[in-house]
C-alpha cells in the first residue's frame, strides 16, 4: 500500500498518522508539503492530518483547503484514491468541497479533549470494514470546531445513502444528529473528528482505531 500524508504549516498529527499507516502496512508514507502541486505517483491512500493548519485563520481548514496540494488531492479523490481526513483534516475536506457541510465551534464553546464512545453506523466502507455495524468503539477527540452542520436535506441524504460512518454515542460538541464522521458519495473519502491514529497501541488506552487502518490496508492490498 502506497500512502502519503499531507503536511500544512500548523499540522500536528501528521507524524502520528504516518506512524499508524506504517504500523499496519509496513511501508512509510511519503510526507507531502502543502506547497507541492503534485502528489507522488501510484498512491492508494492520502491522509489529511489533524492540527491547526494556518493557525485556524479565517475558519478552521479554510486556508489549507485552498493550498496548492489540495487541488491534486481533489483530483486524486475524483480518480478513486482513498482520502482520510481526521480532525483538522475533516475541516479541510469540507472547506475544499470534497465532503458536504461544515464544522462549527463546539456548541458548549469549550475545547473538548477526551476519549469518547462512537457508534459505527456503516461497516461496508473501505474504512470501516473491520468494524461491526452498531458496534461501540472508544476513540479520542481533541477539537474546538467539531460541531457538524449541514442543512436538513443534506443530512437526510447522508443518512439515506449510508454515508454517516460514525456517530457520537454521547453528547460531545452539538453535531447535527451526533455525526462524527461522513463518507463522500463514492465512499473513497472519509472525514471524521475523532482520532483513530491515537488509538492504535495498548499504551494509548484503546486500540479501537487500529482496525480502521488494518481494514484499509487489507482492502487496498487485495485491490492490487
Amino acid at each position, binding site marked *: 500500500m502506497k500512502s502519503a500524508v499531507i503536511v500544512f504549516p500548523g499540522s500536528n498529527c501528521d507524524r502520528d498518522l504516518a506512524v499508524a499507516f506504517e504500523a499496519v502496512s509496513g511501508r512509510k508514507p511519503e510526507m507531502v508539503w502543502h506547497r507541492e502541486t503534485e502528489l507522488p505517483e501510484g498512491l492508494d491512500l492520502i491522509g489529511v492530518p489533524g492540527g491547526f493548519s494556518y493557525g485556524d485563520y479565517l475558519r478552521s481548514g479554510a486556508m489549507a483547503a485552498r493550498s496548492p496540494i489540495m487541488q491534486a488531492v481533489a483530483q486524486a479523490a475524483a480518480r478513486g484514491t482513498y482520502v482520510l481526513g481526521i480532525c483538522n483534516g475533516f475541516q479541510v475536506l469540507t472547506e475544499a468541497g470534497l465532503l458536504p457541510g461544515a464544522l*462549527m465551534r463546539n456548541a458548549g464553546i469549550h475545547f473538548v479533549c477526551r476519549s469518547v464512545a462512537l457508534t459505527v453506523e456503516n461497516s461496508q466502507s473501505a474504512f470501516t470494514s473491520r468494524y461491526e455495524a452498531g458496534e461501540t468503539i472508544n476513540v479520542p477527540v481533541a477539537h474546538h470546531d467539531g460541531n457538524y452542520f449541514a442543512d436538513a436535506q443534506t443530512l437526510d441524504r447522508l443518512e439515506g445513502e449510508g454515508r454517516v460512518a460514525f456517530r457520537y454515542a454521547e453528547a460531545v460538541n452539538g453535531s447535527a444528529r451526533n455525526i462524527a464522521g461522513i463518507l463522500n458519495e463514492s465512499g473513497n473519502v472519509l472525514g471524521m473528528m475523532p482520532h483513530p491514529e491515537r488509538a492504535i497501541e495498548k499504551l494509548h488506552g484503546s486500540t479501537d482505531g487500529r482496525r480502521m487502518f488494518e481494514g484499509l490496508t487489507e482492502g487496498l492490498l487485495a485491490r492490487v
Partner: protein
Amino acid sequence: MKARVFVTLKSGVLDPQGKAIQHALEGLGFEGVNDVRAGKLIELDVADGTSQDDIDAMCRKLLANTVIENYRIEAIG
C-alpha cells in the same frame, strides 16, 4: 480603493460565541439583550477599478463559507 466585507452566520445556524457574549452581558447586569450574533469584518485594500464581481468572487471562494455564512460587501471608495 477599499472595501469592507461583513461575514455573518446564516439565520438558523447556532452561534455559540454569540450566546456566550449574550450571557456575559447579562452577567455584567445589562438587561434586555435579546440575542447576540458574532460575525467578522474583513477590510480589503484593492486596486482601483476592482469590480464588485471580483470582490464577490473573493467572498465566495474564500472569505465566506456559504454553507453556514452570508456576506455583504460595502465599497468605501
